[in-house]
């Protein structure tokens, strides 16, 4: 095929990306995830039939950075939340904080507390979603269990129906907090520069207190489930520490002044693969530390630590590749801000042999630790008498120019950066989305898993789940939803020699059954 193609031809070729014929010509795992569009993995074999290259692709782009231009800055919290409907609250909050910075305005205490309350409720709800509906099943039901059971229903079967209902109900009640205080659970509307749109009433606080208290119990209970199901099972622990899921990278997270993770506010801290503090900086300076690399075969960009530079998909202290999300945050921290979470934190590192932990799958555990913290923090805020103070807005007076906002999304550090004209109209927007920070490490995990499990064209049947797990551990947004309903992610794996002849095709159907063709 000629290198020069007409757009028309290119499109047809592009269209084949989803074509079944195409799917059988190589190992294709599609879809895997969804940041902006669902992910895709292409694995190429060499003459020997060994993995020569695996591509982790994100085949879609929407271009928020562009169409944010010309919009009033105050619309950003609502517009950018549409980047992700799973974690809209994170984008909404990052954008809102960027507006505070843009207008150089400090929200009244009550406003800050309402924001963090909403945010904590969201973190509990989202982490719970992942643990029970999405990632958890790998452990609770078991990675080797029939795929058809590896889903929420399987979890319910394993831990009991009332638990399933408890999870669903808890999640709904938490999202009620977001709706009451933030307008909408999907794409909230509370954020304004200098505060929030609406105060919290006494009746609402009463409801919040109740929910928050239950959330703490719920988090404890969840840790219990994790202990009894995962930690009690040596096989799982081995799996967690297995090399296939291990990368020695840098870790990034947002910390309070005692270097304890804070999802809503603080300084960004980065630690080396050895766990030593490598840098700590305020959001406004992120450009000195974070850069993005472009590959022609994916619409998603790959983040790395700017001072270290881009050295390809490789880990270690020389590579600028770093990681975010629960495990990264714990690795980058010196402890947790709430008692129960601190306990769980110590337990995790004691069990996994000290800091930092490089095992991707430990993210599931770290997530439970954070679940505890978020729930405890939620309770602190719900109980705070100042929450219902009626002063929730400081009107901006300064002339806007530039502002950066950062929060810890469930899936990692999230940066929003706006430059506006004096009328507050966005001239430039830059968004570094949580999973983007991880995309390089995800690509590495995928390739490593593939290499570890494919040799001489022989493909172990475990590869599908394992690659999937390696991937899911990052909880890259909706991709995790592959377990939200009966059935499992179907995978087709075709192994093809360099001559293009198909050596073997392995296929897992939605019922979980495996076939060789």
């Amino acid at each position, binding site marked *: 095929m000629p290198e020069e193609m007409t*757009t*028309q031809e290119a*499109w*047809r070729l592009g*269209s*084949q990306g989803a*074509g079944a014929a195409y799917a059988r010509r190589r190992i294709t795992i599609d879809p895997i995830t969804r940041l902006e569009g669902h992910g895709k993995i292409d694995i190429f074999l060499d003459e020997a039939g060994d993995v020569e290259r695996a591509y982790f692709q994100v085949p879609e782009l929407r271009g928020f950075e562009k169409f944010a231009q010309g919009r009033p800055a105050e619309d950003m919290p609502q517009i950018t939340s549409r980047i992700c409907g799973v974690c809209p609250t994170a984008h909404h909050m990052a954008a809102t904080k960027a507006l505070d910075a843009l207008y150089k305005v400090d929200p009244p205490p009550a406003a800050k507390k309402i924001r963090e309350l909403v945010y904590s409720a969201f973190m509990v709800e989202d982490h719970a979603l992942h643990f029970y509906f999405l990632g958890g099943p790998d452990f609770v039901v078991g990675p080797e269990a029939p795929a058809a059971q590896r889903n929420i229903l399987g979890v319910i079967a394993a831990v009991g129906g009332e638990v399933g209902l408890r999870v669903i109900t808890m999640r709904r009640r938490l999202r009620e907090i977001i709706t009451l205080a933030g307008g909408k659970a999907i794409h909230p509307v509370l954020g304004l520069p200098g505060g929030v749109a609406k105060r919290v009433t006494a009746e609402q606080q009463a409801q919040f207190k109740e929910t928050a208290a239950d959330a703490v119990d719920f988090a404890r209970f969840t840790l219990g489930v994790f202990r009894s199901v995962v930690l009690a099972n040596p096989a799982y622990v081995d799996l967690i520490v297995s090399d296939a899921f291990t990368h020695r990278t840098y870790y990034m997270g947002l910390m309070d002044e005692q270097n304890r993770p804070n999802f809503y506010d603080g300084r960004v801290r980065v630690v080396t693969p050895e766990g030593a503090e490598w840098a700590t900086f305020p959001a406004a300076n992120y450009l000195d530390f974070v850069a993005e690399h472009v590959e022609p075969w994916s619409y998603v960009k790959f983040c790395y630590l700017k001072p270290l530079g881009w050295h390809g998909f490789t880990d270690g202290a020389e590579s600028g590749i770093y990681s975010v999300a629960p495990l990264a945050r714990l690795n980058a921290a010196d402890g947790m801000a709430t008692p129960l979470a601190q306990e769980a934190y110590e337990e995790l590192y004691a069990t996994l042999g000290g800091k930092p932990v490089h095992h991707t799958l430990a993210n599931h555990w770290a997530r439970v630790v954070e679940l505890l913290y978020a729930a405890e923090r939620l309770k602190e805020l719900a109980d705070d008498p100042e929450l219902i103070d009626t002063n929730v807005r400081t009107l901006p007076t300064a002339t806007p120019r530039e502002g950066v906002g950062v929060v810890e999304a469930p899936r990692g550090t999230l940066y929003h950066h706006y430059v506006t004209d004096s009328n507050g109209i966005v001239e430039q927007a830059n968004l570094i989305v949580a999973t983007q920070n991880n995309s390089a490490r995800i690509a590495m995990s995928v390739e490593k898993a593939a290499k570890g499990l494919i040799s001489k064209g022989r493909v172990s049947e475990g590869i599908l789940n394992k690659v999937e797990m390696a991937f899911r551990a990052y909880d890259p947004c909706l991709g995790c939803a592959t377990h939200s309903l009966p059935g499992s992610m179907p995978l087709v794996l075709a192994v093809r020699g360099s001559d293009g002849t198909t050596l073997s095709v392995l296929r897992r159907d939605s019922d979980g059954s495996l076939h060789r063709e």
Partner: protein
Amino acid sequence: MPEPTEKPQESAADGWEPKIVAFFCNWCTYLAADLAGTSRMKYAPNARVIRVMCSGRVDPQFVMEAFANGAEGVLVGGCHFGDCHYQSGNHKALRRFRLLQRVLMGMGIEKERIRIEWISAAEADKLRDVMNDMVARLKALGPLHLEVPAEGFPEVADLAEVTA
């Protein structure tokens, strides 16, 4: 049933003529256009007049529909301020028009393509001049290709082929 339609000419070279949709109020501008006729004035034949009772009836959607369907320009004609048969319809028309103009410019439609003029029943000469002037400006601008670029849309047939 397919109806006979005029095949559009594409460029000034092959005799391209800009097509203008004009909305004239019944009491002033439409009468001015009649007067131009009875006075046997001559002006460019590019405008197609749609009669409304008042410029205040002109819904911005009409203007957008016109552009979306191939109009190269839109002209709204009403009574001078103070003369509106309905007291203030022209004021409302002007406010809507100015906001509409901002939106259209944001959509890449040049300012000259949409115009509002107050022409009293007596001002046949003004009507003639406005018509001629607008046609001249539109010819200078050239055709307005609003339709979404075709290259962005492979034929369904192609896709079927691709998906086969």
